[in-house]
């Protein structure tokens, strides 16, 4: 009898300014490339709000940001980061380097320490030395550079798989052999696709569509393995700098 309880003590209903909109994001860094991916389902509770709401955004020719958590905060945060990057471009006549964007994001998140953006950010791209990089953040700005990271609804499903397949945790190399330090792009793309199809099978908030952004360093040889990829689309206009591509795939919609 919940009604009787409410008579016994004054009931207080507080407006909750947050929601959880599900979905999962993932990024993996290679030697001279980075893959940043996210599913496109947006949900609240058991309802699918839309089957296509992008969570991965190109910021510059060498930086891509994935946001996951409360969608309204996520969209606002991306909007504000982009505005800061535009101001930087006007002031310095160049794009902000990746590690500077990472520090900018930490500052912007921590500025809202006592009313946080309920968003998990993963920033991927190419560092100034030409190496692939992934930065992952918590909602109040703690961050670190990593080789790979999954976040969101299916983080607990995907991250252990990545630990095993990227970091070779719990694997013993054949005698006289060593684990590779960096994986080739084709292997990474397969791992990303498998991660999301598996997460879609086991998590109700993951599915509908998959968007994978590939950022290539200047003169990266990984370009060759992209030529055979079905439906790939280039986001950058010049071929002499870093290049950004997007690959879209369907995921199960149930």
């Amino acid at each position, binding site marked *: 009898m919940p009604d009787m309880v409410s008579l016994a003590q004054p009931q207080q*209903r*507080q*407006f909750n*300014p*947050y*929601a959880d*909109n599900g979905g999962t994001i993932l990024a993996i860094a290679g030697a001279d490339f980075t893959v940043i991916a996210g599913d496109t389902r*947006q949900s*609240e509770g058991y*309802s699918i*709000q*839309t*089957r*296509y*709401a992008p969570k991965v955004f190109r910021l510059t020719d060498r930086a891509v940001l994935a946001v996951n958590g*409360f*969608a*309204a905060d996520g*969209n*606002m945060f991306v909007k504000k980061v982009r505005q800061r990057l535009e101001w930087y471009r006007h002031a310095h006549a160049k794009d902000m380097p990746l590690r500077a964007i990472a520090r900018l994001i930490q500052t912007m998140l921590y500025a809202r320490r006592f*009313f946080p953006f309920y968003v998990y950010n993963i920033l991927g791209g190419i560092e100034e030395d030409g190496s692939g990089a992934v930065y992952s953040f918590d909602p109040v700005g703690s961050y670190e550079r990593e080789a790979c990271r999954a976040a969101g609804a299916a983080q607990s499903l995907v991250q252990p798989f990545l630990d095993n397949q990227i970091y070779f945790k719990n694997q013993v190399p054949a005698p006289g052999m060593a684990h590779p330090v960096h994986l080739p792009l084709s292997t990474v793309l397969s791992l990303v696709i498998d991660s999301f199809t598996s997460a879609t099978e086991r998590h109700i908030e993951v599915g509908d569509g998959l968007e994978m952004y590939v950022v290539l360093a200047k003169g990266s040889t990984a370009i060759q393995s992209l030529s055979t990829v079905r439906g790939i689309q280039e986001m950058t206009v010049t071929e002499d700098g870093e290049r950004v591509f997007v690959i879209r795939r369907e995921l199960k919609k149930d």
Partner: protein
Amino acid sequence: MDHFPTNWGRPRNDAYDPYGTYPIAHRPNNGPKDAFADAVQRTQQPIVTGTSVLAIKYKDGIMMAADNLASYGSLARFKDIQRLQPVGAHTVIGAGGDMSDFQYIQLMLDELIIDEFSAQDGHTLGPAEVHEYLAQVMYARRSKMNPLWNSILVGGVKDGKRFLAYVDLLGTTYSASTLATGYGAYIAQPLLRTAVEGKEDILTEEEAYKILEQSMRVLYYRDARTIDKYQVATVTEKGVYISESRRLDTNWSFAEGIRGYGAQTQ
């Protein structure tokens, strides 16, 4: 020297602290003084509410439907309320949730449209701009912990492009070819998706209307905060058209066939 700009040019309490040597907590407060600050009311819960709004894309544009009821709790309080509203020449919005907040939103949008018209710069706001504006207002209000308690659908056609999107009291936004707010998200949305997804460029106006009418009927049968009077808005390249109120045909003859709940003996 007093380093606090809000104190500059104002009477200084020299007897008390001529050199600003006291801690900040003890300096003169020149912030806004509101005797009623403790009594400021915020929308903590909706009072007079509208229920679902439905909308779909079809061949020539978008179509939206909402009934004419504004409820006061479970009381059917106002039975001739219009919950669909044209905004400019290319857009229609439909709202569920608190109806007084919706009327305030209508006021803001009227002002916005007048300002844009007054500019006489050859530009008009389309549905995408109206939706962006609403999203920013709704998000700003939720961030002040003083939300406008609505879920709103924004639809329209401009420059040959259809637009249909949602925004709610949290500032959450999304876009899809079928949208439904409130109870409609549970009851009507699955029906709309089956009928519309993949057929957005094929459905005629008559077919779109049939789909919405049937969904409104199902909602009337199942959602206790509806009435059988509703309106349909159509937006095409030609402009916005909001229909007169229509009555739903319903059939209750199945009711006497139901056995097992009441006092029937057989």
